[in-house]
């Protein structure tokens, strides 16, 4: 009985931590990018100030919007936070291990994409609908890559629970790391860039309507709804970063249990996520945005590598 309460508290802490740290990672990436462009860049905590600004502002609603205008932001944020419940952040123990696995996480991410695009379509403005159309096109290509890369990892531990994958990776590093793992990691990296709307697939900082995918859908939103949507985007970014680092570099996360385990886990996660953020920032500064209709080649390559990874794992496991 007490283990349930303890797990519940730990789960709550994990969710709260992720929700709290999300804007920080975003600020960190912006700061590194600015440094590369030899400029000061916004302060690390600017993300929090932006959120506070949006959440307190009044909203301007389009006449032509329907009940979807209310449903979309609420649904997107709820789904994103719900996804955090099934992801191992500080150790291999996830808040609700028996209730969901990688398929549920993929499903919840798909739910966020669906509600976000519906929100974009709601008001009828061409920019929002263009954003939705492109987000769905990219999303449709990304989903198989996401599933296959995670499935490739799930083959060896014979379980799709993310916690088990992490524990297996930590316990048998030699079998875990291999060609299959590398290909799956490459695939997942492209997924991370695509889902968070980073260059070379999408440009997060632009306000040029015709080029933005993710920002396009939010164009009709203002005030608190806009704040919620941005917040959900930041949480998803942190969530995917955590997934990338924890599942593909699970070393040391499941070594001890109890307080010392969490401490070690937390420090490792913070370092790894920072490194990931750093890498993302380098990527954004080095590359330019690809033309939209060239994306299938990039995501297609990722899909191929994820599929190959899964195949290799099967044949040589």
């Amino acid at each position, binding site marked *: 009985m007490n283990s349930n309460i303890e797990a519940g508290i730990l789960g709550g802490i994990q969710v709260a931590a992720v929700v709290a740290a999300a804007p920080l990672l975003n600020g960190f990436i912006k700061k590194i990018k600015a440094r590369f462009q030899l400029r000061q860049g916004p302060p690390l905590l600017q993300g929090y100030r932006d959120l506070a600004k949006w959440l307190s502002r009044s909203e301007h609603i389009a006449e*032509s919007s329907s009940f979807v205008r209310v449903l979309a932001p609420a649904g997107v944020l709820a789904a994103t936070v719900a996804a955090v419940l099934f992801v191992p952040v500080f150790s291999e123990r996830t808040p609700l291990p*028996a209730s969901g696995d990688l*398929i549920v996480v993929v499903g919840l991410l798909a739910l966020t994409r*669906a509600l976000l695009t519906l929100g974009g379509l709601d008001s*009828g403005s061409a920019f929002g609908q263009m954003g939705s*159309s492109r987000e769905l096109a990219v999303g449709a290509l990304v*989903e198989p890559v996401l599933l296959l890369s995670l499935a490739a990892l799930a083959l060896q531990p014979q379980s799709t629970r993310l916690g088990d994958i992490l524990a297996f990776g930590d316990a048998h590093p030699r079998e875990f790391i291999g060609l299959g793992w590398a290909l799956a990691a490459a695939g997942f990296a492209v997924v991370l860039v695509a889902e968070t709307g980073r260059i070379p697939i999408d440009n997060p900082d632009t306000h040029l309507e015709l080029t933005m995918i993710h920002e396009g859908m939010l164009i009709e939103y203002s005030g608190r709804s806009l704040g919620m949507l941005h917040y959900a985007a930041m949480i998803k970014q942190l969530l995917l970063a955590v997934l990338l680092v924890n599942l593909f570099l699970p070393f040391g996360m499941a070594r001890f249990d109890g307080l010392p385990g969490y401490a070690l886990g937390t420090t490792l996660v913070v370092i790894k996520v920072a490194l990931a953020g750093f890498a993302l920032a380098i990527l954004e500064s080095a590359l330019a945005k690809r033309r939209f209709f060239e994306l299938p080649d990039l995501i297609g390559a990722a899909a191929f590598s994820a599929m190959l990874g899964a195949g290799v794992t099967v044949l040589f496991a």
Partner: protein
Amino acid sequence: MDDNLLATCMTLLLAACVSSSVPALGRFRPALVLSALASALALAAAVHVTGTGEATTLTLWEPSRYATLELRLDPLGAVFAAIVGGVGLACSVFAVSYARHRPIDDLVYPLFLLMLLVVTCAGNVYTFLAAWEGMALASFALVLGDGAPRPRRQAAIVYLVMTHVATVFVAASFFIVAKESDSAEFARMDGSALSVPLASLAFLFAVVGFGTKAGLIPLHIWLPRAHPVAPSHVSALMSAAMVKTGLYGIARVGLVFLGPGEPWWGIVLMSAGAASAVLGVLYALMERDIKRILAYSTVENVGLITVGLGAAVALRAEGRDALAGAALTAALLHATNHAWFKTLLFLSAGSIQRAAHTLNIDRLGGLARALPATGAATLAGSLAIAALPPFNGFASEWILLRALIGAGGAGGGDAVQLTSLMVAGAIALTGGLAVACFVRMFGIAFLGIGRTPEAVAAREPSPIMAGVLSALAAGCLATGIASAWVVRWLQSVPAAVLGAPAAQASHGGQLALTGGGTFSPVVIAVALIALAPLPWLLARMVFGASSQTQGPVWSTGVAFRSTMQYTGTSFSKPLRLFFGRVLLPERQIEVIYHGASPLPRLVRYSGRVPALFEERLYLPLRALALWSAGRLRLLQSGSVQAYLLYMMAALAVLLVVAQ
């Protein structure tokens, strides 16, 4: 208890047929009311049989010496009987206010329901084949209606012809098994002792014969033509229930009759299913008529169910019965879930048709505000069919993917493992495309502002219809959340077919597969429902209430008009280009200039995605057949001498041969 439930259901349906001929009762639509009642009874009987797991038999009469009409409802058949009952109930109630009163339809509709039921609970080969052709005939009559426009007539004829030819394969497959166990009774037919080539032939015949009815690619060409022309309540019945009888046939032959079988059978089935799923949803994305979108989406969902069946066959051939049970459970659960949301979407299409007189999404728009009830129900249906939590579509997709990933793991042959993983990838792609397809359908049709006066003037057609839609939407959500108990209800089928139940459902609504993997739809739903209002309450506490102001949509300073919105075609343009090599889209752009000025006066765009299978496979075949028939026709040249020569030749050949 179930057999007299079945008997009363049959008599009610026959009474419905007879009542249609009584003009006086016309206004009360006795046929539909009786059909609804009968469907409810059938649903009850079927649910009870699957729940308890024991079969019930009912012998009717003997139309001829070696042909007896006999019913036998066993757990596998009862699942599909339940689907027919449930869908029949919803469609009949919906039809009371939706369907125009045509005496012929009132006669044929209950007959169609009766045939559907008899197919699912046929006890022997003769009853099955008689009901199978009767079902094809009845649905043909409903699709044909008064045969008014030419495409509707052609669609109906193509459908009847393809089904009639496919029935020969079905009969051949049954007879191969019947000859082996020298009995035509389903209970005693067992082909496990068949030699491998003969059993494979029986299996392939079954896949071709039943695949045509199910709509598997490349045998699907009748489906997207026949469903849209039928009245909505008939399309719903065809898409949600009739198509499943094809899958029931494949399951009956592949899993029950042919014993463990060969792994490559499963691989063939899984590949056909995956192809149907991906191509089905891709074509659905390119369609503009709602009913054609839903018809292609039926091809997709049939593909998903076939993947489940294929996995079950392959895994059972390799002896991994736990995973095979999971795959079979996934297939059956998806069959029931599909019945829920496909019926909902087709009936909502009927409601839209009645309200806005068109189903072309490029001429709708803004219906969410005009038809709130239909809009909300269609949104629920769209999210469910796109397999998104917390709806029922996600539950069956989860079990399917979990079974496939499990099949990909160690323990089986490499071929099965690789195929399972590739198919899992294909299903994920299908899921992504399905999200795109149904967000497009719902978004373009229901959101934004009306593109035509009819769309703007649309109003909720009738409370009964809205009521049925809301009930179905609630059903999608409820069966999503309670899918653990639905799976427990289904367990009698894997237990009967594979010898071991494949999944347990614990009290907390958590679903655990014996092949490994747990999942709790209740927890996910609670999390979503709790987390949705939480941030807003927190924000209200911290930042106080946020005021709202109304205003027109921002369109770069120009007055916002409905033509500025995206249309269905433009919305699916990115995906059309991404999958260009598969879809081979065609387009013509004509630019007309005004005298010398460089500004174009008129740009005319026309584009289409060709129906590849029809144009590259079926039409050339038909042309060849007509050409060769024309050549052979010269044999009847009209000259008596030639005819005498034929006789002389026949006589000479026989005299020489027979010595």
